[in-house]
């Protein structure tokens, strides 16, 4: 556990925030949570193929960041990508169908949990080689510059990814050319079993930006409004042509690394302390305190999120299984 990270449990400060934005963020975080909670049971009880990595407890990062973007801005994601997709409005039905390896899935059943992609939503892909999405988002930012599209590109990646050389190569080019890129370190304090202190010489990961003359921010990643505000500033800078920003969002992976991984390397008290700092409940408390929503309204949104996921599961189960030769159509593009 990082001695330097304060675990905050106070309500998110929602004063001055647009209630519509807050409501959207609350809904999206719940959808992401419920999606993964149900996946867990599906993996336990049915023949859901493959593996998956849950972002339970980290939803405020995905949702806070994406809420600051336009629909046509682009993101890249990781092996732990479900929440990014939900935040970016990838249809829940298609996400769930992909998990079940159905033809109607967002990747036609070819990608699975670790490779969810939806170009119509600016979701450029989930890359399961740690760090590999970082230069790809940077390329999307370069493309936005070349095409003069005004788009911003965001790369999500974990605390473990900053130790891949490609992180440094990409950030240097982005800063050198002032590309409209935003880098989000989802610092959930572990890369599988390894703590940040065990793998990074300087555990303040945001500080790496200074080597590239890039502005950086370190935010409470369980405070969706703090994440949102920091991202809004970065988006403004990017769109103004002032270049990239590195944001380190401090959060926690409540579940094991993947599927049934028990995470025995973490002290139980640490997990419990972070469970009590749940980003969804902190937002709910903040919204009620700020008068942005009533408890009843929030409860209704909770129920809606649950039924949206139930519907997605029902939908996915009616879809068509991938057939043996489907992939032959997807190996190379036809000109």
């Amino acid at each position, binding site marked *: 556990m990082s001695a330097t990270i304060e675990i905050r449990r106070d309500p998110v400060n929602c004063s001055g925030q647009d209630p519509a934005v807050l409501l959207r963020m609350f809904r999206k975080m719940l959808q992401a949570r419920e999606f993964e909670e149900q996946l867990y049971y599906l993996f336990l009880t049915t023949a859901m193929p493959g593996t998956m990595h849950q972002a339970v407890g980290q939803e405020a990062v995905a949702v806070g960041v994406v809420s600051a973007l336009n629909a046509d801005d682009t993101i890249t994601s990781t092996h732990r990508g479900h929440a990014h997709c939900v935040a970016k409005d990838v249809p829940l039905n298609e996400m769930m169908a992909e998990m079940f390896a159905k033809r109607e899935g967002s990747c036609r059943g070819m990608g*699975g949990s*670790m490779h969810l992609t939806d170009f119509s939503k600016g979701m450029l892909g989930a890359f399961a080689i*740690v760090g590999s999405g970082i230069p790809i988002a940077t390329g999307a930012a370069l493309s936005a510059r070349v095409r003069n599209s005004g788009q911003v590109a965001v790369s999500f990646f974990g605390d473990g990814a900053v130790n*891949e*050389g490609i992180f440094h190569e990409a950030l240097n080019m982005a800063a050198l050319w002032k590309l409209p890129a935003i880098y989000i370190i989802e610092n959930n304090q572990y890369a*599988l079993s390894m703590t940040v202190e065990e*793998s990074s010489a300087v555990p303040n990961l945001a500080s790496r930006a200074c080597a590239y003359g890039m502005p950086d921010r370190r935010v409470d990643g369980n405070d969706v409004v703090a994440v949102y505000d920091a991202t809004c500033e970065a988006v403004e800078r990017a769109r103004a042509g002032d270049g990239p920003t590195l944001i380190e969002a401090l959060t926690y992976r409540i579940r094991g690394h993947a599927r049934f991984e028990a995470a025995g390397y973490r002290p139980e008290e640490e997990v419990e302390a972070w469970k009590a700092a749940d980003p969804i409940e902190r937002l709910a408390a903040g919204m009620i305190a700020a008068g942005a929503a009533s408890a009843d309204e929030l409860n209704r949104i909770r129920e809606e999120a649950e039924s949206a996921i139930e519907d997605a599961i029902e939908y996915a189960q009616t879809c068509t*299984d*991938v057939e043996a030769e489907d992939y032959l159509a997807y190996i190379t593009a036809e000109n």
Partner: protein
Amino acid sequence: MRQLGLSAAIREGIIQEMRADDSVILLGEDVGKFGGAFHVTHDMLDEFGANRVWDTPISEAGFTGLGIGAALTGLRPIVEYQYLDFIFCAMDQVVNQAAKIRLMSGGRAKVPLVLRGPQGATGRGAQHSQSIEAYMMHTPGMKVVMPATPFDAKGLIISAIRDDNPVLFVEHKLLYGAASPGGGKALSDSAIQAIGMDVPEEPYAIPLGSADVKRQGSDVTIIATLLMLHRSLTVAAQLAEQGISVEVIDPRSLVPLDVDTIAASVAKTNHVVVVSEDTSRAGVAAELVATINDHCFYDLEAPVQRVAAVDTPIPFGPAAERHVIPQVDDIRAAAYRALSD
């Protein structure tokens, strides 16, 4: 005799070499405290300490290079990749550095380095499923070792560690076996045979470049590695019931390759099937076909049959993955084709 699973056998071989030789060290992600993603390095940190078991950051290019530097200066590092797909992050260090340093130094330098990790398609999509041995087989300077049974794995890892060259040691996720320390839900495949599980406790070395005839036969030779060896043995048992006698050969290392054992078998059966889980084009099976044509052409009564994965990234959907990867039925059909001429 005592029975071990594949990962336990590799683990025992590594531990015995580390006890015998202080220059053997481990580098890799989660190899220490966590004991390795597939438990191969379980408890090694406790026994050997942090000066010999290095839990690295996620920096494949970096820690591969560290392994090379340590190898050049008197150590025998074993580098683990959590999945062999990730070795591509380190390809410059492997292909341009580790494999070339010996020649570039005019034979003055040596790089006693083991690069090991699991591969194989197990429903995890294109970036966690690939078979990588053909890339390394194509890289002069590298040796490539492919253990399919626990007995072989222990003897081969010991030889790999003692070898003065960079060795890729390929493990298959589906072969790790339930007996792995640390347990967990074992992946499995119905074709996997309980063979070679009697593993002697004392250290022993199986020389690289020595193939093993896993089943004697006289009608057709099947050459296969890793999971495909097990599927081929399943085919051999099926065909035996039809009166077809199949010889099954496991090369155990692709570089060096034991051509003599293969040629002797071909001289006897005159019909050959080669099977590999990697993709077909410019792959392991292609190289084996060419080698057999070079050495055994006049012993052949029919074209050598090649069975390999379809030339595609591995798709996620189970039916599609199954279609891409050679199955028992594909190998059996190839054996019939080999015999039909």
